[in-house]
Structures are given as structure tokens and as C-alpha cells.
């Protein structure tokens, strides 16, 4: 069973062999390293760029405008904040030219905390990404979604950003999250597609014959059904929400967990349906809490489902501080933790309207 990072690598392989991907590039993305997280090992079209994020995004746009199919990477989303103008431009290509051009860029950048990455390897990017009109934004919480969302991103004629959560990159697929065609045994897969330590000049991957699965952009997934409250979340917070839901389930509380998977365009129908059913909602993410994408969800819920809510809608998100501090206590105080999610759920369901 593939890890999330292996799933990305498999999708990139399918992309370059069958879906026309021409360039997979970024800092240390090509040989010998194949990406700081191993995500691009063994890929035919992977290449290293200069250390220049603006050049990476700019070149991706140029390639896309010339009919290539680039998949560009920013090594950590923490280093994408000097490219917001270029990302905005990419999102505006079609609209600004009144449909003369489209801009089929795929941009990947790992996000979030949980690996003790300190101030500059812990940033989130969901708030920024959802402020980019013209982009589609996807964020997987498990290997199969990463695989299927990336394939959909590759064939989409618009700019699509994939935000894999760093802390989940080594996460293994659940039993029903298999990529069709991957070997049953995880060690077998590693042997086939993980580059060996040491000299790699003569190593070639042996690709399993995985089949295409297109997880549709714009479709949420209900990870757990429940009637008492809804958690709307994505990425790294999905497993946390599942744990919290399991924890309160022992207290007889049934929490529904909605994994958005696509942040934009949003599966509003799915969110609405769930909240209509449960009448209580917790929005959960780890980005800083002021001008946060979760606040968009709360706003729409307040505007449209005000009378369906039995408790005030709640956002649990990251602290409004300049970064995630290195020390354990600081990271824990900065971003939502299991206890906090459980406490928020208890409060939500016990709230008397």
C-alpha cells in the first residue's frame, strides 16, 4: 500500500507516461535526490531548477502557455510567499484575455506543521490559495485522494494547486484506499519505486502497472457519517477529526466528518447537506485564524443556514502568530491538537439552543 508520497510519485509517473506531462520540476526535484520528500524519484521528466521560486512559477506559466504540461513544485509552501503575484497572474490568464489563452499549470507544494519544522517549514497555504481566483485548489488527506486528485489536476485545463500535508506524506493508505494496480505488499512497492540510499546513477524504478483513478475536483468526501455534529475539514486535520470523532463516539456522540478534498471550487452542496442534517458544525484547519478559509465556510454557513444551526458555528484553527515555534509546547499551542478538537466537539454537541 502506497504512502501519500509514493501515491504522488505514481500519479506523476502516470502523468508523464500517459497524460502528456512534459516537465516535473523544482528545487532538487530531479536526480540525484528526486525531491526532498522523495516525491519525484525515478521520473523521466523530472529536473532540477535554480534556487528561485519566482523562476519556477514563471517558467511553469510559460511552459503552459506554450502547450506543455508542467507540474512545478515549490519545495515548501513557506517559500511560495514571494510568488503570490505570479500565482495571481496564472489564475488571471484566461479571464484577463477573455478566454484567448488558458493556463494548464499544476503546482504542488507541501504544507502544514506536524514535523517540528519550526517557523519556516510549518506554514499552511490554504488561506492564500483560496484567495487566487482562477485556480482550483485540492488538498488530499490520504494516498488514494492524492493520486486521484493529482491525475485530475494534470488533465484540467486550468491552473490547479495540490497541497499535500507534510505530516501525512508517510501515511499509509487505509484498506479501501488502494490504488488499482499497486502491489499488495508495501515492501514490494518500496523496492520497485523508492530510490536506494547511496549511489543512484544506475538505479531505474520498476513501475507497477497502476490504473487511472480521477478523483473529481470539486467533490468532498464524507469520511464518517454522524447525526450529532459535522466537522468540515481537509488535509492533515482529517485524521485528527477522525480520531476525535472516534473518541467522542465512545460517549455516544456521532460526528460526521466531511473531507473537502477540493477547497475551490467548493462542494457546497455536501457541506450544506451535512450541516442541515446535524445542525452543529465545527470548521477545522491549521492555518492562522484571521482571514482564514474556514471563516469563509463559517460565513456562508451563517448566511445560508442560520436557522438550521442549534449552536454557533465554530472555527478551530491556528494561532495568529508569525510562525509555528520549534519547541513542542509552542507547536502544540499554535495548531489544533486532538484534545482541542475533542473539547470543541463536546462543547458543540452539549450546547443548548
Amino acid at each position, binding site marked *: 500500500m502506497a504512502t501519500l508520497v509514493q501515491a504522488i510519485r505514481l500519479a506523476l509517473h502516470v502523468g508523464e507516461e500517459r497524460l502528456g506531462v512534459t516537465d516535473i520540476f523544482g528545487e532538487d526535484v530531479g536526480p540525484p535526490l528526486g525531491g526532498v520528500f522523495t516525491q519525484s524519484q525515478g521520473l523521466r521528466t523530472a529536473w532540477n531548477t535554480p534556487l*528561485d521560486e*519566482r523562476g519556477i512559477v514563471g517558467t511553469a506559466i*510559460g511552459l503552459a502557455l506554450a502547450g*506543455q504540461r508542467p507540474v512545478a513544485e515549490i519545495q515548501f509552501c513557506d517559500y511560495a510567499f514571494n510568488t503570490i503575484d505570479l500565482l495571481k*497572474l496564472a489564475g488571471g490568464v484566461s479571464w484577463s484575455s477573455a478566454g484567448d489563452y488558458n493556463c*494548464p499549470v499544476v503546482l504542488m507544494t507541501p504544507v502544514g506543521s506536524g514535523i517540528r519544522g519550526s517557523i519556516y517549514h510549518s506554514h499552511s497555504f490554504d488561506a492564500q490559495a483560496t484567495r487566487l481566483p482562477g485556480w482550483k485548489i485540492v488538498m488530499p488527506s490520504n494516498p488514494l485522494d492524492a493520486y486521484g486528485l493529482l491525475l485530475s489536476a494534470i488533465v484540467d*485545463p486550468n491552473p490547479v494547486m495540490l497541497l499535500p500535508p507534510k505530516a501525512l506524506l508517510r501515511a499509509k493508505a487505509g484498506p479501501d484506499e488502494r490504488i488499482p494496480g499497486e502491489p499488495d505488499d508495501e515492501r514490494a512497492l518500496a523496492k520497485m519505486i523508492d530510490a536506494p540510499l547511496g549511489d543512484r546513477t544506475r538505479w531505474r524504478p520498476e513501475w507497477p502497472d497502476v490504473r487511472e483513478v480521477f478523483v473529481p475536483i470539486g467533490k468532498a468526501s464524507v469520511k464518517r457519517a454522524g447525526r450529532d455534529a459535522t466537522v468540515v475539514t481537509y488535509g492533515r486535520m482529517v485524521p485528527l477529526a477522525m480520531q476525535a470523532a472516534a473518541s467522542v463516539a465512545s460517549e455516544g456522540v456521532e460526528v460526521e466528518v466531511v473531507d473537502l478534498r477540493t477547497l475551490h471550487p467548493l462542494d457546497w452542496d455536501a457541506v450544506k447537506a451535512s450541516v442541515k442534517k446535524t445542525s452543529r458544525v465545527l470548521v477545522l484547519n491549521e492555518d492562522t485564524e484571521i482571514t482564514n478559509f474556514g471563516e469563509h465556510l463559517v460565513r456562508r454557513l451563517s448566511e445560508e443556514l442560520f436557522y438550521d444551526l442549534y449552536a454557533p458555528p465554530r472555527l478551530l484553527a491556528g494561532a495568529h502568530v508569525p510562525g509555528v515555534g520549534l519547541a513542542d509546547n509552542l507547536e502544540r499551542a499554535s495548531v489544533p491538537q486532538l484534545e482541542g478538537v475533542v473539547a470543541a466537539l463536546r462543547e458543540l454537541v452539549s450546547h443548548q439552543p
Partner: protein
Amino acid sequence: MTTTTPHEPPGESALALPAELLVRMHENMVRARCLEERLIRMNKQGDGYFWIGGPGEEAFNTALGLLVHKGQGPAYDYLHLHYRSSATLLAMGADPVDSLRQMKNTASDPYSGGRNFCNHYSVRKWNVVPVSSPIEVQFSMAPGTAIANKRAGGRGITIVQGGDAGTAEGDFASCLIWVSRPGNELPCLMIVTNNQGGISTPASEQHGEKHIADRGKAFGMRTAVIDGNDVETAYRALEKAMDYVRTERKPMLLEVAVSRLYGHSSASGANLITEEADCITLLEKKLEERKILPRAAMDELRARTTQELLEASKRVREEPQPDGSTLYDHVFSDRDLVHDAASRGNGAS
């Protein structure tokens, strides 16, 4: 301090051009000038909110438009232009009326559907990528189309053009780095049209480079500094530069001295500045001296073109504005237009 004293030897590049070509260039330059003057008028009369354009750059930009290997897809040249490129577009065959449409932000504006400022082109069928207002971002994108050119194999190159002040943005340096990677040199012609300043800030205050083009030298790039006010120098030097980039599949940095004849934009008044060299006057002097065109014919061309554009502007004024309900149109594309074209491998048009 940036100066643009040309250091191209006078030999080859000053060779006279055939009379026929000079006449053709002259006609395009006059059309471009008349177009810009019409745009300025429209703006002053309230038929458009903002003007920015290229009066003073017609000689060089006409040469560029004529020399482009024009078509769609990576076998042809890609153009990353800026807001002073009207003469290039006209030389490529653009309809000046479309520029009036963009000035008047009509729904019929083919470059942006009334969304963008005048002289912000987008012509997919000719590989003219969308012009956007932020200075110098085109230089960050150029390596991408140049990679596609190189991959396509043919003679197609990437041309990226911007002003002198804009070279202070990091994106100009990014382009130098990306097009000169050892073993991966790209067929990219970087052009700096140097009018000695930004909006109001003189280059001499802000730029310590003797020639901006010298910045290419550390990267082993071929460079040249030329006088863009002289059509013959401009044409020859550009032909030579393009030939190098097309044939060697390597980058080059070309700095071109140009004038700015109506100031920066409508924000600074858009009034005629008579102190700077006017490339049309210079060319017309040659045409007269060489007895290629009589004064009267040239005056007549200008009067006629002015009149035609005036009439066209009146018609454009009646064309409908985009409706508010179209606001969300084209936020997303439903087709991969650029890829379809490239994979059809289709061509010159």
C-alpha cells in the same frame, strides 16, 4: 550610470535597407503613431479611462514585428511584450481598430473583452502571450516558452521585451539565470527598450550599470547595445540577433535606445515631448534624401491614417460594452486551448 551609447560597430548593421522595406516600415510606423495619437485623443475626450503606449519606439518595434517567425505553437516565436508594443502588433498584422476597442473597453475588444487597459494584447494564434501590467513578470515566464521552442526543434525562439527601469526587478535576473543554464541554454532573445527612466525617475539616478546589456556578460551571453531610433540599425541588429538565437539556440541580451514621445502615460499628461529624437522624422528624412518617398506622400499617408482612425473611433464608440452579467465568464476554461493548438502542430497564419 546607464547610458545607451550604441557600441555596435557601424559596419554591417548600418547597411542600407532596400527601399521597398523602408517604405513598408515607414507605413507601419506611421500607422502605429497615428493609432497611439488616436488613443491619446480618445482618452482625453473621455472615450477610455487610461492611455499607455509606444510613441517613440516605432522603428525598433516595427522591425521586431516584421522579423517575427509568426504562428501558433512552439515551432514559432513566442512574444512576451509590454504596453509599448503597438508597432510590433501592427507589423504582425493586427487590426488597429482592435486597439481602439480595448481603449473604449468594448465587449468586442479581442484582447481582453473590455477588461484590461489599452495596449494589453493577447493573440494566441500568433503566440503573443497576454500582456499584463505588473512590470517585468514577462521575464520570469519567458524561459518556459523558450524551453518549448527548444524542444520543438525548429527555428522558433522566445522574445521577451521590457523597459529599462524594470530591469531592477528580480525577474530580469531570473531570466538571465534560467536561459543560460549550462547545457540547457535557451533560444531566448531578451530585449530592453531603454528610454532612460521609469515613470519619473531617471535611470541615471538608479542604475549603476554602464550598459544594462552588460549584465548578460557574467552569464556568457552575447550582448549588444543599439540605437533603436534608426530603422536600419534596428532592423539589421535585430535580424542579426535573431539569427544568432535561432541558429545557435542560445540566449542573447539586446539593449535598444528608444524615445518616449508622449511621456509615461495619460497619468503624466500624454503631451508631445519635442526634445527627444523622433524615429519617424529621422526615417522620413532618409526617405526624402534618398528620394524614396516625397514629402507630400508621407504627409498624405499620415493625414489619411489619422482620418481613418478618427472614423473608426466613432464607430467603436457605438459598440456595446460588456454586460455585468459576463463578469464570471472565463474565470475557468473548459478546454485546453493552448495544448490543442500545440498538438495539432498548426502553423503560420
